[in-house]
């Protein structure tokens, strides 16, 4: 671990505003602390409803924390102050959400180029980079298709490279491959790892699939049921580059799987 973590979450707490006529809301997350260092691939696993998406939303500053601190490059996010949030921290944190959130009125290429366009960084060089990424994930030939004309896996790929295209130093991923069939998922995991090996970005990857958490990550955090806290931490030392299809046969895999399984309730 480096001395100064890139991203630090300390004593984080979150509860949503109460609705009229209901009891005070319960804490979704309480006393959650962890740190991520530069270039690390962190996977986070937890039971459904354990506030994984909420956690990522708070890191991306889409949502505001109720207590604690979220610090990125030693800059703290506002607490309980939705108005001064800075979504994406000026393009330093990319976010691949659970749904693909492609713009239905834009073609695949236009969707991938969207961040570059709104950031005013669309030029021949970035455009060429986008085209390289499109080819790398097998979307060549589908550039002028609209999202409804793509399959689920293709939409997922488009949304993945839409974040990669503007090269944010940190990328958050919220169960990006959750809704896909096993075959497509493995393929996308391989694509992701290959792209990651090229750039070595910092990735925080949320999933509910233990095998996926082990196969991709340098380190896995296990979250408890709500209010979520860190229930366990596992450093994964399986050498890279990894063979995702054969990872189940790795001697380290079985032990990790068992101990993580025991912690995920």
């Amino acid at each position, binding site marked *: 671990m480096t001395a100064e973590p890139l991203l630090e979450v300390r004593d984080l707490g979150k509860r949503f505003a109460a609705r009229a006529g209901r009891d005070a809301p319960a804490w979704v997350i309480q006393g959650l602390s962890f740190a991520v260092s530069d270039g690390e691939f962190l996977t986070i696993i937890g039971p459904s409803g354990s506030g994984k998406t909420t956690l990522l939303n708070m890191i991306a500053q889409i949502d505001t924390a109720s207590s604690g601190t979220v610090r990125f490059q030693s800059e703290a996010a506002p607490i309980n102050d939705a108005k001064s949030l800075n979504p994406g921290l000026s*393009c330093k944190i990319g976010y691949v959400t659970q749904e693909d959130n492609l713009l239905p009125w834009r073609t695949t290429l236009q969707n991938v180029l969207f961040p570059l366009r709104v950031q005013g960084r669309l030029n021949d060089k970035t455009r060429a980079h986008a085209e390289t990424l499109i080819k790398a994930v*097998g979307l060549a030939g589908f550039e002028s298709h609209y999202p409804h*004309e793509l399959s689920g896996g*293709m939409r997922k790929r488009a949304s993945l490279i839409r974040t990669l295209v503007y090269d944010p130093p940190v990328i958050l991923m919220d169960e990006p491959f959750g809704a896909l069939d096993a075959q497509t998922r493995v393929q996308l995991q391989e694509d992701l790892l290959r792209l990651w090996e090229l750039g070595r970005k910092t990735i925080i990857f949320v999933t509910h699939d233990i095998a996926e958490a082990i196969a991709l990550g340098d380190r896995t955090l296990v979250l408890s049921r709500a209010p979520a806290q860190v229930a366990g931490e596992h450093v994964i030392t399986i050498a890279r580059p990894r063979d995702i299809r054969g990872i189940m046969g790795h001697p380290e895999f079985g032990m990790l799987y068992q101990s993580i399984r025991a912690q995920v309730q």
Partner: protein
Amino acid sequence: MAAQSSDAAVELRPTPGRGALRSRMDRLLVLVVLLAIWVALSATLGSYWVGSPWGVVTRLGIDLWSGIWHALAFLAGTGWTESALGLMTRPTNLASGGEILIHASYTLYEAVAGFLIGAIPAAALPFLLRRLPIVTAIIDPFMVGGYGAPKLALAPLFILWFGIGIESKIALVAITVFFIVYFSALAGIRALDAKLVQMAQVAGASERAVARHIVFPGAVPYIFTGFRIAMPYSIGGAVIAELISANRGLGYLIQLGAMNFDTTGVFVALVAVTCIVFVGNWSVDIVERWLLRWRPPADARAELKS
């Protein structure tokens, strides 16, 4: 690399096949049945009560023909019209020489002008008020009132204010269209997908970029639904204002026909109104289909059926 994608793109936009042909045939059948009923009614009741289809068709035909002839004459200059060929092909019945076309053009002009004056601010207003929910809330009851009030009852007032010329008709059409389009555009903005906005903000989009790339394109289908509903109202508004007081336009023609007990004349004007509505609807269709080509065809088809 990973080019061997296991999932293929879904094949879409089916070419109009049997289903489309079938529905076209069915429509033709319905048209024939309606025409048969019309012929039967006109034959049993007499053309004094129900204008005969044949009379309507001949009058419209003669009118169109002479209208075209006049237009050609205008374009070619008077020399050609007085030529032997011109005299030979000159429509024999010049009683209504292009009359319907001229009246229809007035009505169309009123409807289009009123539509533009009403619809453009109505579509723009919810965008301007998007960041001011309080203002939207304050004006809401007044907008609902304006939407619910019978606009046709305003016609006498507008005639008083703007005279019996086209201004009063344009004003009536504009106010009718305004409220319909306003509520459609408002619904479009309220149906905005917050997740798309968050995605765009994380990707670095400014407030303006969000409005341009997400809010506006998302609202376009709703605005077009408003246009589609408002379009017949714009023609109807113009015609009704003309019925009340005018010296030209299709509404005037209807009024004139009724006063002269010229039932066929009334029918001719009604058919002309219907034709304009058809063409208007068709134009909205074409523009909409082009603007909304990103939509899944199932959606588009559901839209057409409604």
